[in-house]
């Protein structure tokens, strides 16, 4: 999976991460399962065959564009 951070042009704060593979702009909301998957991905977990499995030591998203 590849994620890229996105900055709110109004607040200049990063409040969205974009899933570049599946598509989707994911807000930083713990109630959002895509955000939960993103947090797991940061820790090196991804869904494999229906199970959350450790696939790496950790991941880092692409930085947000400057605007």
């Amino acid at each position, binding site marked *: 999976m590849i994620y890229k951070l996105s900055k709110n042009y*109004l607040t200049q704060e990063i409040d969205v991460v974009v899933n570049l593979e599946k598509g*989707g702009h994911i807000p930083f909301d713990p109630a959002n*399962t895509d955000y939960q998957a993103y947090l797991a991905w940061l820790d090196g977990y991804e*869904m494999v*065959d*229906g199970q959350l499995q450790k696939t790496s030591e950790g991941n880092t998203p692409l930085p947000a564009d400057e605007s």
Partner: protein
Amino acid sequence: MSYNGSGTFQINTTGQPVVTGTVISSTAFNALTADLATGLSTAITKDGQTATTARIPFAQGITSTLVTDSSSTSTGSIITAGGVGIAKNLYVGVNANIAGTLNVTGSTTLTNPVINNIKMGYSTTATAAGTTTLTVSSNYRQFFTGSTTQTIVLPVTSTLVTGMAFEIENNSTGLLTVNSSGGNLVGTIPAGVCAHAVCIGTTLTTAADWDWDYISTSTITGTGANVLGTSPTITSATLVTPALGTPASGSLVNCTDLNYTGFKNRIINGAMAIDQRKAGASVAVSNTDSYFGIDRYSVIDFSNAATWQQLTTAPPAGFQYFGCLKRNSGTSGASTLAITQVVESKNCIDLQSQSVTLSFWAKAGANFSAASSNITASVKTGTGTDQSATNFRNGTWTGLATVVTSTFAITTSWVKYTITGTVSASATQIGVQFQFESTGTAGADDSLNVTGVQLEKGSTATSFDYRPYGTELALCQRYFTKSWPTSTAVGGAATNGYFGISVGTATTAQLVTNIQFPVEMRANPTVTLYDLVPTANKVFKGANGKTAYTAAISTRSVYAGTQDTTSSAEMVFLYTADIEL
């Protein structure tokens, strides 16, 4: 001998007959008088001096003009101490008065008799979970008292005549079972009820020789109506415009044909009517739980070789749609396939410590491969908040507890299935799941078909909660919404349904607009923008393929557009917003 034995009086003594001109001797004369005396003494005297010594034949009958008291036993026309035997019919022109007992042992037919009253016999038996066998000599009325059950065996009908009857009244609190002499059930009599059994045949030992009717209950109150006594169970009753009144307490359960009864179904889109993502098209199912198609249902196939589709051909009566989870034909090997829906915590807290019932319609495809055609239906709870369908299926919900799970052998016909269980006091989330294990190589229709899914409070499955389509759509849009029309699948031709702005003069600056979602979403959704191709994460600004941009995603709205620097006066896109569990 004066009589010849046939009633003829004969003068046959010596010297008889006498001869004219001769002397009649004393011997001849005395012999004649002796004969005459004998003959007269043998005859019946009309004043009753003699009693007959043998039966007297009256060839022309007996006629008497004697007027007697009809109630007298000593002055009648015929008085006999030894009784009267009548070989032929007895006809009584006026009255027949019998002071003693009239015993009739043969079959008696009384045509249109007028009887002021009849004293019928009765017997009383205390119920003791035993058997009471009736015979031809048993009393007409049979009363049963006590507090337990009893079995009554009716007489052997060949010992009866048709029309004989028995009235059996259950004054006990237990159930009476009435059988024929051959042990076949004729009827059962609940407490407080009276029944009537009439012999209608004399050749069988089965219930067919008996006519059975319930003739009364023991408690009748009220005005102009019969009111059943205590907690009656009425099966398949037809109530014509009943007035329920204002009962002080009680609950109305298992009622069919009730119209909108208030959102009793905790499952959203139970009738599979809403399919925003695919609009009825088939979609491939992967080995990662996902909301591929029909709204609110997460689906998985561990073999990555199945489809999920909203179908409309031959659903069960009352439904227009059903979901079909089908293995791809020719796929080999075992796999687990599951359909899951989890309920948002806000919608299930009131189910704590309550009985809940899951009902659903299911049908197997013609080539359903699961062993014994078994599927497993489950209702489970957790103690977390809004945890995902994936974690539900994986069994990793916090405080996961099974409310009820059951295996059903489904058939190729639609059947409604039901399971009931009790939710724990600490449950804060609930979900349902249908799962099957495929085997062998998939045929043309190795599928599980489901619709009419309903999870409701209570221990009885009631009629399905049909909600207006627009209402159901709005309920689904709390979890997923899109700019495409509902009838167009996501990714379909973008002929309409897109958002955008036109600024009049071409600009290289970012173009961003605000989207208001149709209903407030469960939480801040994942928003995906599409250009007009449509390609995900892209928008149209002068051309397709410009990088999409969002900000300030909330449950009600999002800023969406692009920061692309292409010079254009227009920016257009379509979108989806997804906050499924």
